């Protein structure tokens, strides 16, 4: 597992790229997450709301960002994730998640890393989600 000493400002996390988002992806996510908002699964409802089609749950892409982070560090060292949803993710988009270390600080003997995290459209590069994750690599911070 990665340690505080291994990390430098500017380091990139291993990129996570996902499969194309299909209607099945959204149905599976709706069922698993409990988010049955019809705007994500019912084309008739989406049209009545003025959209061309259903679109992906923002929280699906945020879950991908969660995978980006837990692939890099132990989940127990994640102190905070704070993001803004900047654009809707349409059907058939493919999302890639990136992270760049922005800060590395010792705060009250706590080894704290701040990472800029983004979920983007693989083809257009458009940012769908942008935010920060605070990682505390101090050993046994929760015990």
């Amino acid at each position, binding site marked *: 597992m990665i340690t505080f000493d291994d990390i430098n400002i500017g380091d990139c996390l291993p990129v996570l790229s*996902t499969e194309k988002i299909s209607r099945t992806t959204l149905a599976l996510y709706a069922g*698993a997450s409990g988010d049955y*908002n019809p705007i994500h699964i019912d084309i008739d409802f989406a049209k009545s*709301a003025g959209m061309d089609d259903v679109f992906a749950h923002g929280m699906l892409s945020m*879950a991908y960002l969660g995978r980006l982070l837990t692939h890099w560090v132990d989940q127990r060292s994640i102190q905070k994730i704070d993001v803004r949803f900047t654009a809707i993710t349409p059907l058939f988009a493919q999302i890639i998640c990136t992270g760049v270390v922005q800060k590395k600080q010792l705060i009250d003997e706590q080894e704290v890393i701040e990472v800029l995290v983004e979920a983007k459209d693989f083809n257009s590069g458009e940012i769908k989600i942008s935010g920060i994750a605070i990682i505390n690599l101090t050993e046994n911070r929760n015990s």
Partner: protein
Amino acid sequence: MLDKNDIGKVFEPITASVEKGRLSRFAKAIGEKNPIYLDDATAKSAGYDDLPVPPTFLFCLKMDVDNPFENYESLGVSLEKLLHANQSFEYFGTAVAGDILTFNSVVEDIYIKKGGALEFLIEKTNVINQRDEHIANLVTTLVIRN
């Protein structure tokens, strides 16, 4: 229209148990293949009491009621106009399968932008487990496009 008088409104607490089947369905839905989230023995050897709840799944457990949008609808929000603008999670502990979590939510703020074309609703939720341990705080910002 939202009503600023609803700032401070406390929603009914939501209690949700963390079921293993839900966790594995969620892992499948988000393409998670890390065995820590799928296999009991791997999770335990990593020091968890059981399968851990992945970072954003707390948001889903909070929707574990008949109509998860009822609270927002009671404030005058219609789903057609609703978008998720911001989401934060702050963690103090990790929940695992078998835990029973309670979500206490309050309307933190309501404000308008663009002369009423956009309304914002900020909901803050704290998550407590069955041992009264503070697991996380969630802050959700919703935007209503009028």
